[in-house]
């Protein structure tokens, strides 16, 4: 042994259409806090899931304390002393705080649950964290921040040799973060290895040494704490060059289509003002969970607004449902096209027809011939590669599926188009085509609100960028002043 507690070599993992890990190497030593940073989609969460025993990699090895780590068994990983604070909540809503904290090693006499020890152990764990939560309360009744604390408490409830923390502070207050960091430092002093993942660079810089940067499923650098500075990390995270991906050409903005003031949806975002003209592309930038999607969903009537007003063409409107939004000429291309954008087992024709069908006034006969004509026109115009308009959508590639979603919405002739991650998980060629389409629609006078985790995409397409952080607007940048670094800094919290 030469000090590395965890050694990852050549780790690969692909999901349909995406390579999440493309050969990751990483070493984490006992008694260190090892930072891990990267943009959305860099592969961090996938890596952590492998370490937690939740995901099986396609290839590669992981050694823990000199022995190969068994893949795909959370229980075995826990037994070895790997404790993970998952980013997505892994609590059981109906069970109590104490039960959730000790869920993976409930104390028992034989088969019987030992209620007293359950409460004692849970209380001790919470005391170490310096927080006070009602032990008997079902976690479903707790606030998000409290749930996060339960999640952390669970990871700390058993002796850890490697503590993996995936965005542990996202929902916490200053005081709770302080307490957490105190614990992390104490564990470090006790010889525990901590793998600390956070979008908040200042946190990483204050805690971690060394810091590893991931990009596009690979490790691009591991810097000792002395060399890790925010600027350098961001430059490494960004990496790639902007090529000829984006269409050039002037667009002439027309009259204002959308004006929104003080939009708020409690718990999601607040204080958001928007102004969008015909022929303009406004980008909503920010990290996953910053409230970008919620804003778009609120404009489409999917998320309730708790404050603020919306004007379309100068007229104040209420949007309570997608139907309201569609009547106003608003279309929404959702983030998750498989779940929200398409009916996968139906044909291209039927999917293209869906939005127009819903707006088609009273129910009548479906005119298949007209549907087919519309679908075939869309196939030509958007260059959708499919054997015919009757082919099932599930057989199409990601890019072509996304074009079907777009075709569906273009069928209602939208004046305001909300695009949420329109190019996620699709190949470069299809991306280019979608960029050209966005540009063309804008040139034709459609107002476009674009959300993407792909920063180059936002910089290449948007006229203006509104950066959100934790549900609040951090700054509005014009295209000329927007740089990758500047946007990231606003999104992650730092001076612009």
């Amino acid at each position, binding site marked *: 042994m030469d000090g590395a507690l965890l050694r990852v070599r050549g780790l690969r993992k692909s999901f349909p259409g995406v390579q999440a890990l493309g050969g990751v190497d990483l070493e984490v030593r006992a008694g260190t806090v090892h930072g891990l940073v990267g943009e959305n989609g860099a592969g961090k969460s996938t890596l952590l899931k492998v370490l*937690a*025993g*939740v995901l099986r990699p396609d290839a590669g090895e992981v050694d823990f304390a000199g022995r190969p780590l068994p893949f795909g*068994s*959370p*229980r075995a*990983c*826990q037994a070895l002393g790997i404790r*993970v604070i*998952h980013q997505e*909540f*892994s*609590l*059981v*809503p*109906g*069970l*109590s705080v*104490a*039960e959730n904290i000790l*869920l*993976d090693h*409930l104390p*028992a006499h034989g*088969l*019987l*649950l030992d*209620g007293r020890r359950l409460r004692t152990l849970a209380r001790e764990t919470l005391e170490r964290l310096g927080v006070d939560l009602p032990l*008997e*309360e*079902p976690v479903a009744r707790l606030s998000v921040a409290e749930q996060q604390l339960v999640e952390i408490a*669970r990871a700390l409830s058993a002796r850890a040799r490697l503590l993996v923390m995936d965005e542990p502070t996202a929902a916490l207050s200053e005081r709770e973060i302080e307490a957490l960091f105190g614990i992390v430092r104490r564990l470090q002093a006790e010889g525990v290895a901590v793998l600390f993942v956070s979008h908040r660079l200042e946190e990483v810089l204050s805690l971690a040494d060394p810091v590893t940067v991931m990009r596009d499923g690979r490790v691009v650098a591991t810097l000792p704490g002395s060399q890790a500075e925010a600027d350098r990390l961001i430059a490494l995270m960004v990496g790639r060059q902007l090529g000829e991906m984006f269409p050039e050409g002037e667009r002439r903005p027309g009259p204002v289509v959308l004006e929104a003031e003080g939009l708020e949806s*409690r*718990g999601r975002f607040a204080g958001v003002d928007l102004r969008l003209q015909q022929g303009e592309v406004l980008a909503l930038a920010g990290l996953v969970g910053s409230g970008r999607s919620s804003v778009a969903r609120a404009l489409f009537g999917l998320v*309730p607004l*708790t404050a603020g007003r919306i004007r379309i063409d100068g007229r104040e409107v209420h949007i309570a449902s997608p139907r309201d939004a569609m009547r106003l000429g608003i279309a929404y291309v959702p983030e998750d096209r498989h779940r929200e954008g398409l009916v996968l087992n139906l044909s291209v024709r039927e999917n293209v027809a869906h939005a127009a069908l819903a707006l088609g006034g009273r129910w009548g006969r479906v005119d298949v011939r007209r549907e087919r004509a519309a679908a075939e026109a869309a196939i030509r115009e958007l260059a959708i590669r499919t054997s015919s308009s009757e082919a099932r959508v599930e057989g199409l590639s990601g890019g072509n599926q996304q074009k079907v979603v777009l075709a569906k919405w273009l069928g209602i002739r939208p004046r305001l188009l909300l695009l949420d991650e329109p190019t996620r998980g699709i190949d470069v060629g299809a991306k280019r085509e979608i960029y050209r389409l966005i540009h063309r629609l804008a040139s034709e006078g459609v107002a476009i609100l674009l959300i993407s985790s792909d920063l180059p995409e936002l910089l290449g397409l948007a006229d203006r960028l509104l950066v959100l952080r934790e549900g609040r607007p951090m700054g509005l940048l014009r295209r000329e002043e927007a740089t990758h670094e500047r946007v990231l800094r606003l999104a992650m919290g730092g001076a612009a």
Partner: protein
Amino acid sequence: MKAWGQRLTVADYGLVAGFLLLCAFLAVLSPTFLTASNVLNVARQVAVNALLAAGQTFVILTAGIDLSVGSTLALAGAVTAGTMVHHGIAAGLLAGLATGLLVGALNGLVATRLGIPDFIVTLAMLSAARGLTLIYTNGLPIGDLPPAFLAIGGGYLGPIPLPVVLMLLVYLLAHLVLRSTVFGRYVYAVGGNRKAAAYAGIPVRRVRVAAYLISGFLAALAGIVLTSRLATADPQAGAGYELDAIAAVVLGGTSLFGGEGQVLKTLLGALILGVLGNGMNLLNVSPFYQEVVKGVVILLAVTLGNLRELRRLLSSGEAG
């Protein structure tokens, strides 16, 4: 104890209140309702459905569903009777219970290992087990059962019918298992958030299989009780019982999505259904209308439960 005390919400008292109200109402309308013989009669009638519903609660808590319990009841009853005639009571009981466990194991293993939705697996079993029963019995009832066996369904412990004693024992045990054992917590965890349960290293598949084993076992027990009470194993016994069992669970407030609910409230649900049927019989309500009333009561109860839940959400500040 305290943890579960706190989980008694307004909705629970509503269920108890509804039950008492129903009883009071029937007591006023029918002089026979509150007589000792009628009360014991209702309890005995409820026992079979209550046994099925107890097992069903385990399965539904893990976010599954067991549609096969009616057929399992018939198959186990027939196997019990058929074995008993040749090999004696003990062998018959063992064979019957083993049949229930076998059916449960099959349900559980097919659902968890082949990844087929619980609904479909147990729907298939509903059909297959009924068919096996018909094959085994040649489609004819099995009678001539030993008199000692008939005591299970017809006997008494003091004034209380044995099936009722059995039912109460089963519910007590089920309640203890769900409340006080590690396995019980796993049941809630697996149903409440399957992914989280897996992340926590809980043996999700084994827990689900165990729930089906319990359901199969209790269905067999119900089959034995019914066979004993009727003194015959009828191959058509228990047809449609799965729906009554599910109704009792749902009436008791257990979420069909899993992870939420209590088995004692299932008992209350079964009692409400039983009393409702008994009351309508006493009042000479046509059986056709009885079915409609039952349907309306189920919808009403569940809607009221939902309304309270909804109001709680609203008052907690969201839509302000």
